[in-house]
């Protein structure tokens, strides 16, 4: 078997993340989190944590405190076994993120900051971080009669009576559709989008990003689903597609867990 370092981690409701790993014969090891840069850009942001012995031989632990929040993105985890050691990418052990499952039911203040430990596609340990001035957490999406009704809960912002949900065409900031937002029970809101308003006259493919505008002139809040235990839901939270004229419409979560609506040509 490989001797690649493997770390267990645990996330708590307040944003703290605890790491545990075994490092035989390490001296003053550290855990490094590096914000994955955009393709072709150099790495710039890192966070280093001291790994302290936890009693057992060769066992070390580190705590990532809730403050300050991590910048939004994917933070890859590495270990440095000694002061001059090369960094080694960490594999995930047990990721105990059960405390995050119900995260959508707790109210958050601005800025909304979240971290979810996850396993990358190529099998390494990473932290998915979101940090937003305000956030609108999507809940159930009802789909019927050529329309979708989204349940949503704002965090870090208050909706006025004139609040709207706004869909903006990706790649064209000036093409928008807006619909009223209605209060629902438990502090939630709902809005209904008629798919007919989203399809192109020529049946072309397009994607709409979904936002809330809390009041006229206020900054937009992205609608997404980031407050539970799932760092990546694109493949598991899948919604039915509906044919409208010559187009097929379906809501989906992007790789960043933001809600969008995809329109493609039918057939």
């Amino acid at each position, binding site marked *: 078997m490989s001797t690649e370092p493997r770390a267990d981690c645990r996330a708590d409701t307040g944003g703290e993340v605890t790491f545990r790993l075994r490092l035989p014969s390490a001296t003053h090891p550290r855990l490094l989190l590096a914000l994955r840069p955009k393709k072709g850009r150099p790495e710039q942001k890192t966070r280093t944590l001291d790994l302290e012995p936890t009693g057992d031989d060769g066992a070390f632990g580190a705590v990532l405190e809730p403050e300050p929040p991590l910048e939004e993105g994917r933070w890859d985890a590495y270990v440095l076994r000694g002061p001059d050691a090369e960094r080694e990418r960490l594999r995930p052990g*047990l990721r105990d993120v*059960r405390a995050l*499952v119900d995260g959508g039911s707790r109210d958050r203040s601005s800025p909304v900051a979240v971290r979810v430990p996850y396993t990358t596609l190529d099998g390494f340990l990473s932290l998915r971080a979101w940090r937003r001035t305000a956030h609108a957490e999507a809940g*159930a*999406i009802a789909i019927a009669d050529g329309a979708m009704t989204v349940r949503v809960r704002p965090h870090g912002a208050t909706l006025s009576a004139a609040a709207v949900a706004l869909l903006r065409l990706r790649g064209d900031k000036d093409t928008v559709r807006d619909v009223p937002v209605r209060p629902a029970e438990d502090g939630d809101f709902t809005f209904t989008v008629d798919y007919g308003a989203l399809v192109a006259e020529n049946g072309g493919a397009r994607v709409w990003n979904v936002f809330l505008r809390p009041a006229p002139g206020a900054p937009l809040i992205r609608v997404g689903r980031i407050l539970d*235990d799932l760092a990546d839901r694109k493949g*598991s939270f*899948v919604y*039915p597609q509906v044919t409208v004229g010559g187009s097929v419409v379906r809501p989906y979560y992007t790789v960043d867990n933001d809600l969008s609506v995809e329109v493609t040509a039918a057939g």
Partner: protein
Amino acid sequence: MKISFLLHNAYAIGGTIATTFNLAGALAQRHDVEIVSVLRNRERPSLTLHPRVRLRALVDLRHEEDHPLHGRPAKVFPSAEYRHGQYSELTDQRIGACLQDIDADVVVGTRPGLNVHLALQAPDRVLRVGQEHLTLDNHHAGLRTVLRRAYRRLDVLTTVTRADADSYRRKMRLPGVRVEALPNSVPDPTLSPADGTGRIVIAAGRLVPVKRYDLIIDAFARVVAEHPDWQLRIYGRGEEKAGLRARIEQLGLWNNVFLMGAATPMEAEWVKGSIGVCASDFEPFGMTIVEAMRCGLPVVSTDCPYGPGEIIEDGVDGRLVPPGDAAALGAALLDLVRDDERRRRMGGAALADARRFAPGPVVAQAERLFQEAIEARGGAGHGTPAPAGLPHTLRTGGYAARDLVRAAASGALRTVRKGRR
């Protein structure tokens, strides 16, 4: 003891692989243990193997997929075996050579075709242990005929349930072969158990028809109608995925039922849930049931042959319902969803009752079984010649037959093949 496990593909994901890794890892505390994987298709195993267990592969498909001998059908590995299509003259040769040279006291086969290899090709000096992870009744008649002949040449045959061991004793004449149930083991969980407060029902396994995930989805529709805040998470991948997705959409359950893909280790997923569910029509053991229980989840399962009924005590640490009955499955789930106190009590019972499947007790049984079988054969283990005066009869009729097979291997193979028809 030196113990070798012969496994189909240690690099894939499945119940047999998981349980073999568990048993091998636990035995490695006191013994020299290796896993021989007939096939290899990736760099590292998907499941986590104990570092003291050595792993080697016989055919590396990444380089040898196009080997000329791999294109020719296997002759030793029986054609009546389900996996025959993945075996070849190349695997015949490599497995044969591996067994001829093997430096072990005990060799354990982990599926019918590999048990046949063991029976026909393992040298006399090793104890031949065949493991059946499926059930006799589920094998088709052609395979049963092959196994009836070949298994006489094993020293030990283990099944995963008592019911299946009874079945082998009753329906196959295996004189002198020790047939015993050896349940699968599940490692002691590292995480604290689920506390029963979650609102997630969890199922896990390959997405194949026999697992009846369609039934779980139908049953869960009843739960959602009454408790829309509950989720069902289904872990695993497989051919049924598109069909299950369509079912979720038909029933309008996309806000509550999620196909999560494969997750390893499952332990961190089980603890997010508060009920486990299994709807299989057929479950030779029920590894995921034990995994869930060891994480503190009561499991609602069909009472299918044979595993669930030997794991779950109905109404105490889980529920058993008739196979194929979505209404009964839904009602049993709802009983536990509605009643927080009962769910927590049954979760606690599940945690306690599933300890009998911990590696400790299971490994102790395996050690005793191997040791007694070695002693019964008249050898004390590797390198110890059978004491003079202990005749072959002690080693069952299969011993002589085995020598005969090797003396006229092709003839014996022909007989075996004829027996299939």
